[in-house]
């Protein structure tokens, strides 16, 4: 360590491998002062201008904002806010092509300046040393500062690091040709930059501060030397000009001789690097409470009449800057490069705004840059390997990239490539090597993502399979136990309503029920009633038998006599709706079908209860009801359930049945009416189809209604209460489906969405109910009303569906 310091003090530096000497072309702009701030007609401020995540927009369209006001609020540590570069009105918040090689659009805030340039209130802090460390870091974060050299890493994270920093390196190398933004900034504002360096020093307490600068900027060096005269611990390190000295790892190597291990960050070896422009922004932010709202941009190239450096407000469209420097390019043949010629990217539009990382806008003349692709075969000359600062083998990587041999590419350390472009610059075969690497890198990342996803999918698939298997086993086990219990019970008591032994009766019931099941008729939960009391097994068996028989025979009577005796009202209602025998049979079938569907869907609730150990009382009531229902579906073996549960009372279920039937009938009728009204003029086969679709929807809705009614009856809750309980169900279900940690947010969203939907649906239902024509004449109990509302909803939806068709 001491030897390194000695060497640095003697101005003896290290060399990094490779590097090139492209024509510098800095003379175009280096002799002119920075042009003062220019405000365009419209500022387009992308909400994300750095590596990390975007903040949340905290302004609305039409808002008046003051200069320096934050437009987004960071929602995570990796987010930095963006600010209004001047006072004005938020015109719109919309997608706009942003400063990215892809030319894709992202969300931007459009700010129309009022040209008053009114500042928000500022707290000038004359002495930053009176501030606590975290206050300074907070100020830097609030000011929205991210690395201004290129990558745009949030600065407050970099400066808020552990102690034991050996070197604070200020990157003033600016090795890219053409760019002089940092050069000019150092010449004109070296005092502020040194203030920024001192703030960083105060935060990081490094052993040494090194300012790395290339020897092609003598004026900047002189200016910095003057500004740092009184500071012994700031060393101006003048390095020979070579591209890419400004690369982070290359500069560290050149200044300290240290080699940053691949995949690790400089901070791990006690080094922090900041760009000079960032230092300037830090000083502005901490001392003058000025957020990062403007930066120096080099507007250069032989395609311009007046190449120059400009103070540009963040969000200024490139077009304005080019106009200020007077473009000489033909209107039909434009080329604008954002960044330098080595690592910059071409823009698909000149409306792209300047962002925090934009240091250069290059407008080349036609012959200035290698604009055409003259790629020929690689002759393995190895010049690329000679100039590669990462000491890679570009030609071998190129072959592997062409062959999409990802394993080989990783072996060749493709990901150590820094995209500097030195290899492509020297390639005599004009192979766009960097482009090949970029594509390969993107593909490998994508592939890794897909692999990860495939692995996860596989795990989830396996887990699901295992769960289904387990459930099946449990079911069989339960059935076995139940039948044993029943047998035991039946041995104790004699059968009722049958001269044969109860066991025989039960067996008979089972067989019949099975047959019924085969006919897509699954038994109702009402048969589950007796399971509360094992003594009543025979009764249940008898009911089951009766039901099975009914289903099998497709009797005209929609409801069996046993049920009829219990609740004549509903029976009457149902019968009223279905006057002729054939229709009533259909209703019965519909009921049965609806039940089957319901039973099916309750399966999920069963899962809930079986897997979730949570003891929420409200939940458990519902859950156990669901369990009971599911069990009812397999009634013939379920009678002796070992758990004590509150059971849905048969009449409720019956009501539900009837309601479902009613709803369905209504829906059908309504649909028919609508169909007749609307479809008559068209009179085409699509009438049929539409009607069918509508019928399907109506059926589905009716199903839903039936279930609604059941639940309402069981819990005797108001609609609001039901909503709450449904939330519980969702929660219960989701807790099983998703892993708890990283998905909380999504679940919450889903629930919120579900709730919103529910609430939306409610008014519709109310509206629909007011339009209701057919009212059940008798027995206007709450249950019936609910059924009606639900039916109305179904109808409304059906109508909607039809209309949309």
């Amino acid at each position, binding site marked *: 360590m001491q030897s390194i310091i000695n060497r640095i003090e003697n101005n003896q530096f290290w060399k990094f491998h490779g590097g090139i000497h492209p024509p510098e072309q800095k003379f175009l702009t280096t002799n002119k002062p920075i042009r003062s701030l220019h405000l365009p007609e419209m500022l387009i401020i992308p909400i994300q201008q750095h590596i990390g995540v975007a903040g949340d927009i905290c302004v609305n369209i039409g808002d008046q904002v003051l200069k320096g006001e934050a437009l987004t609020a960071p929602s995570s540590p990796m987010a930095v806010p963006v600010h209004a570069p001047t006072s004005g009105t938020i015109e719109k918040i919309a997608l706009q*092509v*942003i400063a*990215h*090689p*892809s*030319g*894709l659009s*992202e969300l931007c805030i459009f700010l129309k300046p009022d040209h008053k340039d009114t500042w928000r209130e500022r707290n000038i802090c004359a002495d930053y040393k009176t501030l606590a460390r975290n206050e300074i870091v907070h100020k830097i974060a609030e000011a929205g500062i991210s690395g201004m050299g290129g990558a745009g890493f949030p600065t407050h994270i970099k400066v808020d690091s552990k102690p034991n920093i050996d070197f604070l390196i200020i990157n003033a190398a600016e090795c890219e040709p053409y760019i002089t933004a940092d050069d000019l900034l150092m010449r004109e504002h070296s005092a502020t930059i040194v203030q920024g360096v001192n703030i960083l020093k105060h935060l990081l307490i490094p052993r040494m501060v090194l300012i790395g600068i290339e020897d092609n900027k003598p004026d900047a060096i002189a200016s910095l030397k003057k500004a740092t005269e009184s500071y012994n611990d700031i060393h101006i390190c003048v390095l020979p000009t070579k591209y890419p000295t400004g690369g982070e790892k290359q500069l560290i190597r050149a200044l300290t001789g240290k080699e940053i291990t691949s995949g690790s960050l400089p901070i791990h070896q006690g080094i922090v690097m900041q760009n000079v422009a960032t230092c300037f922004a830090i000083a502005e932010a901490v001392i003058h409470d000025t957020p990062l709202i403007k930066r120096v941009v080099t507007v250069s190239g032989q395609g311009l009449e007046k190449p120059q450096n400009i103070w540009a407000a963040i969000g200024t469209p490139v077009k304005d800057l080019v106009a200020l420097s007077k473009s000489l390019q033909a209107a039909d043949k434009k080329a604008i490069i954002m960044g330098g010629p080595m690592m910059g990217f071409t823009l*698909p*539009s000149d*409306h792209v705004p300047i962002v925090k990382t934009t240091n250069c806008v290059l407008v080349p003349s036609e012959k200035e840059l290698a604009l055409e692709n003259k790629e020929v075969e690689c002759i393995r000359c190895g010049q690329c390997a000679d100039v590669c600062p990462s000491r890679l083998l570009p030609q071998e990587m190129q072959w592997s990239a062409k062959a999409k041999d990802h394993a080989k590419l990783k072996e060749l350390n493709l990901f150590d490539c820094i995209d500097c472009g030195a290899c492509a610059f020297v390639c005599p075969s004009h192979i766009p090597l960097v*482009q090949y690497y*970029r*594509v390969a890198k*993107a*593909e490998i990342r*994508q592939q890794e993502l*897909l692999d990860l*996803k*495939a*692995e*996860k*999918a*596989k795990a*989830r*698939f396996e*887990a*699901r399979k295992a769960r289904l298997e387990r459930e099946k086993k449990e079911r069989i086990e339960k059935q076995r136990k139940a039948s044993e219990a029943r047998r035991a019970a039946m041995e104790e008591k004699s059968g009722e309503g049958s001269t044969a032994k109860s066991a025989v009766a039960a067996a008979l019931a089972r067989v019949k029920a099975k047959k019924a099941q085969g006919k897509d008729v699954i038994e109702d939960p009402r048969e589950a009633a007796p399971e509360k009391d094992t003594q009543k097994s025979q009764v249940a068996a008898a009911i089951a038998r009766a039901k099975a028989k009914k289903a099998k025979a497709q009797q005209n009577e929609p409801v069996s006599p046993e049920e009829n005796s219990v609740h004549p009202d509903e029976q009457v209602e149902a019968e009223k709706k279905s006057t002729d025998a054939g229709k009533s049979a259909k209703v019965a079938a519909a009921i049965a079908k609806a039940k089957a*569907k*319901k039973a099916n*869907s309750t*399966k*999920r*609730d069963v899962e*809930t209860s079986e897997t979730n150990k949570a003891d929420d009382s409200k939940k458990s009531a519902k859950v156990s009801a669901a369990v009971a229902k599911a069990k009812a579906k397999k009634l013939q073996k379920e009678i002796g359930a070992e758990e004590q549960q509150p059971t849905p009372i048969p009449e409720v279920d019956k009501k539900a049945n009837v309601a479902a039937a009613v709803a369905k009938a209504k829906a059908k009728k309504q649909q028919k009416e609508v169909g007749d009204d609307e479809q008559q003029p068209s009179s085409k086969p699509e009438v049929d189809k539409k009607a069918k679709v509508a019928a*399907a*929807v109506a*059926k*589905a*809705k009716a*199903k*839903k209604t039936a*279930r*609604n009614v059941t639940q309402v009856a069981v819990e005797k809750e108001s609609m609001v209460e039901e909503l709450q309980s*449904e939330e519980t*169900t*969702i929660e*219960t*279900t*989701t807790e099983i*489906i*998703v892993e708890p940690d990283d*998905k909380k947010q*999504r*679940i919450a969203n*889903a629930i919120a*969405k*579900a709730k919103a*939907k529910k609430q939306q649906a409610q008014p519709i239902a109310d509206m629909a109910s007011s339009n209701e024509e057919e009212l059940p004449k008798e027995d206007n109990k709450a249950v019936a009303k609910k059924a009606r509302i639900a039916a109305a909803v179904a109808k409304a939806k059906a109508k909607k*569906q039809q209309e949309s068709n």
Partner: protein
Amino acid sequence: MTTLIAILVLGLIAAAFGALLGFASVKFKVEGDPLVEQLDALLPQTQCGQCGYPGCKPYAEAVANGESINKCAPGGEDTIKKIADLMGVEPEPLDATHEQDNRPKVAFIIEEDCIGCTKCIAACPVDAIIGAGKQMHTIIADECTGCDLCVAPCPVDCIEMRPIEQTTKNWQWDLNSIPVVELD
């Protein structure tokens, strides 16, 4: 006599080498992945069943037993090529019965239309749909493999497959796809 000795010597040498080889093959046996495992690793694990098998593993088993290698629609040409390499056969074009659009997709539930029937939940091979009976369902997009299996069971056709959108995060550096837009 000489011939006999020659035969004997050669025979002995052959036997010695044979024994050596046999020993080596036992001693230095390389435990490779069974073929099925390797094939399974190549498949995209969407568990979509488009190949006609209930999941990727069963298809891997079938391929190992001689099923044609071109039935994995989500994997597309890439997967076919990899399987062909592994099996040492010629790659074939994707089975024509599959749709040609191989862009990665995720399922999307049109929430207004969802009636909460849970049928899609039952169909999803990777449990990527949240929801409960008569509750609106939604897809966990990150877990969705785009297998298409939930689309058919939906009684109200409220599920559609949407291609994954391109963002700056997943852009593949395809310069030719850049739209050159001009607002004026």
